[in-house]
Each structure stands twice: as structure tokens, then as C-alpha cells.
């Protein structure tokens, strides 16, 4: 078990390295001179070839790519001083550089935005399961009945609406049209500052994510539960004279959870990497929107940092899925 985790972490580490290399190379060999975005920004769009050369030289783009890559990686581990166009700034470890847009250390901004993203992601993901799974199970147990058909078609309709439209309508009605007290002021307030405001500000984004995402979980849980309930061991459990509740939940649900856990892990990872629409619509300063804007602004250090963050999150989530999987199913031994 321990060896397995170590092995997976080592493998994950190499994936992260690979991702960092590709991103680094992408900018280096990109369609535009890599120094131009910063040069443009700092010279108010008057980046002459001479100035560009100053930036290119000072940002190291005239050096071989591998030595600059090593400098970048060393910065992450140990920190470094960054000198651009004659201005030197100290960038403590883990150093991902300074955001072109704000001139702040990227790591600092990431740290600031992480709690909001985590709050949105975990709340939304929890609702996926809390709403989706029980409804799916209820539908599975009433398979073929009118209730089942009604549930299935409702969720089918709901999931065919584009998410941004759904979230926008939700926001529009709750905050503008109905002006529901307490919910109208969305946004992120740190949990440590004011728990009530934290919850109130996030409730709407959670609901938007949760309701929409749970449609998928309903369908999934239904299918997986129907499959589990048709297994031979369910018939055995009933033949033992166990109460229906025990049969369905103890014997059926545990088996049905295995595939649900798998997509849940991936979904959670996706949410943590960023919920662009949710953050945009409900005005939350999270990682997703930040990454999107950075791409638009060609804010290379931020793009690099968010991409690496995404890779790490996905690797960890996948590992967690496998660990939960092995805890659920003793046949999957982690060794």
C-alpha cells in the first residue's frame, strides 16, 4: 500500500516535470517573441525592436532553453532574484515569477485565490453527490415506473441546457428578479472572517454547480445501481432474508459506488482547477477565471503556474480515487 502510493507519487512527479517542460517550451518556441507581452505592457504598447531586445536579453531568452528551464525550476524549489530590464526583484520559493498584470509574485496570488476555489469546488462537488446519488438510487429502485421516467426525463432536459445559461438565469432570478434576502450578495468572504457570510455568498454558486452537475450523477448513479441490483449477490442477500434496506444500501450501494467514485474524483479535480463560468457569474476571485484572463493577457508566469497547479491537482485526485477504490473493493489490491 505504502509502496504503491510512493510509486504513484514518483510517477506523478515525472508527469509534473513533463508538463512544466512542455509549457516552458510552448512559450519559448511560441508564435510570438516570448518577451513581447511584458515589453508591450511595460512600454505602453511602444515596444520598439531595441526595447524588445533588452527584454529578451534580460529575461534570458537569448540563453539556451535548458539552462533557463533549470533556472525556472530552481526558482520553484529555492527561490531566485529576477532581473528584468534593469529592475531586480526578490522572488522567494516557490517562485513562479511575477504576474505581468499585477507585478505581484504569482505564488502569492495563487495562495490568495485558492481558498475561494476550494470553497466553491468542495461545496459544488458535495452537492453533486448529495443531490445526484440519492435521486439516482430512488429512480433505480423504481426502475420502469412513472416516477423513474419522470426523473430521468427531467434531468435529461436540465442537463441539455448550457451550464452558463443555467447559472446566469439562476443568478439573475435569485439576485435581481426575486432579490432573495441573504443570497443576493454573492462572492467570496473568507471562512475564517465570517462563516455566515462565507456560506451565504457561496450558496448560489454551489446550487448552480450542484444542481447542474447532479443531473449527471443521477443518471450515473441510476445506471450503476440498476447494474448492482441485478447482480447475483443481491439475489443471495435477499435469499438470506435480509431487509430490503440492508439489501439495497449495504449490498447494492457499496458496489454501485465504485464507478461513481471514479468520476467524482475527476470532477472534483476539474472543479479545483477552476470553474470559469461560476467564478465569472457569481463574482468570485478564483483560479479558473484568473487562468483564463492570464491567457488573454499573455501573462506567461500565471499561465505556467496555473497549468502546473492543474497537473498536480489531477494527479492527486486520481491517486485518491484509486485509494478509495481499493478501500471499497478488496479485490483491487494496491501493491
Amino acid at each position, binding site marked *: 500500500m505504502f*509502496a504503491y502510493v*510512493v*510509486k504513484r507519487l514518483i510517477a506523478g512527479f515525472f508527469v509534473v516535470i513533463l508538463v512544466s517542460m512542455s509549457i516552458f517550451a510552448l512559450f519559448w518556441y511560441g508564435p510570438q517573441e516570448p518577451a513581447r507581452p511584458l515589453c508591450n505592457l511595460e512600454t505602453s504598447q511602444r515596444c520598439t525592436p531595441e526595447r524588445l531586445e533588452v527584454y529578451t536579453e534580460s529575461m534570458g531568452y537569448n540563453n539556451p532553453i535548458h539552462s533557463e528551464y533549470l533556472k525556472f525550476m530552481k526558482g520553484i524549489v529555492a527561490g531566485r532574484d529576477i532581473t528584468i530590464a534593469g529592475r531586480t526583484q526578490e522572488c522567494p520559493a516557490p517562485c513562479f515569477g511575477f504576474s505581468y498584470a499585477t507585478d505581484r509574485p504569482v505564488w502569492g496570488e495563487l495562495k490568495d485565490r485558492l481558498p475561494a476555489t476550494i470553497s466553491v469546488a468542495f461545496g459544488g462537488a458535495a452537492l453533486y453527490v448529495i443531490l445526484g446519488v440519492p435521486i439516482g438510487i430512488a429512480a433505480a429502485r423504481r426502475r420502469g415506473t412513472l416516477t423513474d421516467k419522470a426523473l430521468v426525463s427531467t434531468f435529461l432536459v436540465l442537463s441539455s441546457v448550457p451550464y452558463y445559461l443555467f447559472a446566469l438565469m439562476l443568478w439573475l432570478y435569485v439576485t435581481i428578479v426575486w432579490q432573495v434576502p441573504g443570497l443576493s450578495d454573492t462572492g467570496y468572504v473568507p471562512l475564517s472572517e465570517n462563516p455566515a457570510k462565507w456560506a451565504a455568498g457561496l450558496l448560489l454558486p454551489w446550487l448552480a454547480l450542484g444542481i447542474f452537475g447532479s443531473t449527471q450523477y443521477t443518471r450515473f448513479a441510476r445506471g450503476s445501481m440498476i447494474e448492482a441490483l441485478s447482480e447475483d449477490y443481491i439475489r443471495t442477500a435477499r435469499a438470506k432474508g435480509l431487509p430490503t434496506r440492508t439489501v439495497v444500501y449495504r449490498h447494492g450501494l457499496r458496489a454501485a459506488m465504485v464507478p461513481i467514485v471514479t468520476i467524482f474524483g475527476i470532477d472534483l479535480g476539474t472543479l479545483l482547477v477552476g470553474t470559469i463560468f461560476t467564478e465569472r457569474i457569481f463574482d468570485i476571485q478564483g483560479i479558473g477565471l484568473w487562468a483564463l484572463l492570464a491567457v488573454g493577457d499573455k501573462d506567461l508566469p500565471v499561465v505556467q503556474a496555473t497549468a502546473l497547479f492543474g497537473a498536480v491537482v489531477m494527479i492527486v485526485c486520481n491517486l485518491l480515487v484509486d485509494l478509495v477504490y481499493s478501500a471499497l473493493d478488496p479485490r483491487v489490491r494496491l*501493491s
Partner: protein
Amino acid sequence: MSDDKTPEVSDPILEAQRPQAETFAEAVAHGHTATRLDTSKRPVLEVDNLRMWFPVKASGLVRRTVGHVQAVDGISFQVPEGGALGLVGESGCGKSTTGRLITRLYKPTGGAINFEGRDIAQLSNRSLKPLRRNVQMIFQDPYTSLNPRHTVGAIVGAPLAVHNIVPKNQIKDRVKELLEVVGLNPEHYNRYPNEFSGGQRQRIGIARALTLNPKVLVADEPVSALDVSIQAQVVNLLQDLQREFNIAFLFIAHDLAVVRHFCPEVAVMYLGKIVEIADRETLYSRPHHPYTQALLSAVPDVKQAAIGGRRERIRLEGDVPSPINPPSGCRFRTRCHLAQEICAKVEPPLLQIGPRHKVACHFPAPLGQAPATPSTAGLLGVDDRGNPQPGAGPAADLGEGPGFNDRWFDVERRSMVGA
């Protein structure tokens, strides 16, 4: 075969093209007696000391090989042209692995597979391709071995296309011909496997195997997934095809009665080794290996029980040991009621003890007549407890190779005799 599966639905238009039996006399004519042994036929397939060891990897950070599953460990036999050799044994004995080795789905760890005199054991996939058509396989499960997204025509015709045997425009005709041969309606080449019943699917699998006119068919449990009334149809079909096309069969099954009917010669495997091989009459009525005796006594016997008699069973206790770490000496000794000291020390050779009978046991004898001392000791140059005898070595030729010799070891007189 329990009936909570979807019942097989008979569709009159799907019924066999061959005239179905209407009267009992016709049904009898469709039925065959057991296949006879023809010793004059030369072997088309000869397997010599074949081994397949699958590596077992360690868990942990470094996956090094820590042992081997000795799935098949030095087996030898011959299959005569147009004949049939049965391979029986229980799960994990290596019989299916043997089938896969002969069709070269696996590359053997060692030994030779001589097909018409050419060793195909170590050939590369490329040099194997022209030979593959000669050795084909019929699988156990007609539900999973046919691709549900391909029509019957595509399934049966695929080997023709792959091997460029007939021009593309003639494939359809050949497929129709084959479907008719196996008793299906040739007009159904456009249908999908799920439109057929289990027995009909097995016929499709057989048609596919016949497509390339193979000289050898490896049939791995060809009837065990079918309903009882359908099993006989398929066994009879295989007998028909064998006669019509002179195909040699390696017939792998756990059902001793079906093997007895189909195969004039039978080999019994246990933990990767052949423990006894003989012609049908000898193996079923005078088996000399305690495992063969136990296997046969375990088969429920309709006729015996019907007339009130019940044979005494030899109870085998426990389970088959792990093929990763098989017992020393004789692999069956841990469950054998005859086992003595010698069995743990010396592995019994597969010794020829009759004109067409070989057995791997230190105490070979018909049931209940086992000798008190090992018959093989003198031959192997050891004393009765398995310790090496000074000055004596094992006899040169114990006849362990494929095929049978003219001289063999008489277990009662404990000396070599000739025909």
C-alpha cells in the same frame, strides 16, 4: 445454463438448412458412435517437452520476477492425421494453455511443436502467418468469442480476407458454403451473432475455424457452455467435419464423458504435466494413475445409479497446489493415497507401460492393485525410498518423448517387454 438467463428462442427460419430429423430412425442416423482409433495414421502434430512458464512479478517499487507459474511443464504427445487426442484435467492443470501454445497464441518457454515435421514453437509472427491457417481454434463461449458488431459473413469471411486466399468477390460464396457445412442457413450471412442461439453461435465459431481448411483444430471446451440437448448436436457436427475434411482434433474438455466419446486417445493433465496418456479403452477401463482413477470415480454415472449401484468414490481432499511452487517429485503426491517417500524425492517419468499407454507414477496399477514397493525404482536407479543406488543410473530411454515405442516397461514383471 440456469434458466434465469434469456431463454434461447427458436426461430423457424433460423433452423438448420440440413434436413432435421423427423423420425427417430433419422435422428439415429444423425447420431454417431464413439470415434475409433486408427493407429496407421501418421502424426500431423507432435509436441515434445513443451513448457510454458509465466513470470510472476514482485509487488513493490521494483517489479522483478520472483517466480514462475509453471502452467505447462514438459509435455509431449502426438495427434494423428484426421484423429483426435483428448486433453482432460481440472481448472488450472494447463490444458487450455496447451491449446493456446499449439495455436501459438502464446510463445512457449521451451520445447518443440512440430507441425508436419516443422517446428513452429519459436517462429516469429511473420514466418508463422502462412502456417497459422493450418491450426485453428474453437472457443468455449459462443457469446463472447464472436464480435457482436460484425455480421456472420464478416466473422466467417475475415480469415479469407486476411490470408488473401480467395479473391474478394468470391468470399461471400465461400462463406455461404461454410455456413451450409455447419448446418446454418447460408442466407443468414448478413445477420449478427445476437440473432442466433448458443448452439448456432457455436456453429458460427466452427465455420470460422473451418474457413482456412485447417489440418488441426484445437477445440477448447467446445460444448461446455451449451444446453445439454445442443451439446450432442455440436459433438456430432464435429465428428462429421472430422471425417469429411480429415481434420485432426486436439479436444480440450473437463467433461470426461464427452472426451471419451470424441477421442480415441486421451491424455490426463495435472498441474502442468501429463500424468497418463492412453487409448480410450485402457484409460477409461484400466487407468493406472491414481489421479485418473480419482477423476473417473468422481464422475456421476447415470446408468450405475439408475440400476441402484453406486460406485465407491475416491475422495480427493483439498485443492490443487499452486503451480508457482509445485510439490517436489510427483506433483500429485500431496493428494495421493498411494504416496510414499520416493514420491517426494524422485519425479516419476511418463513411462510407457503398454502398447499405447504411458503413466507417470511410481506405483502404476489398476485401481486397488497398487504394489507395495515402487515399480519404477530399478528403472530409475534408486532404492524403494527414492535414494540413489550406488552404481546404478536411470535407464537410458524411458520413452518420455511423444509417440509410443515398440518396447515398454511391464509393470508387473518390472522389465522391458516387446510387442
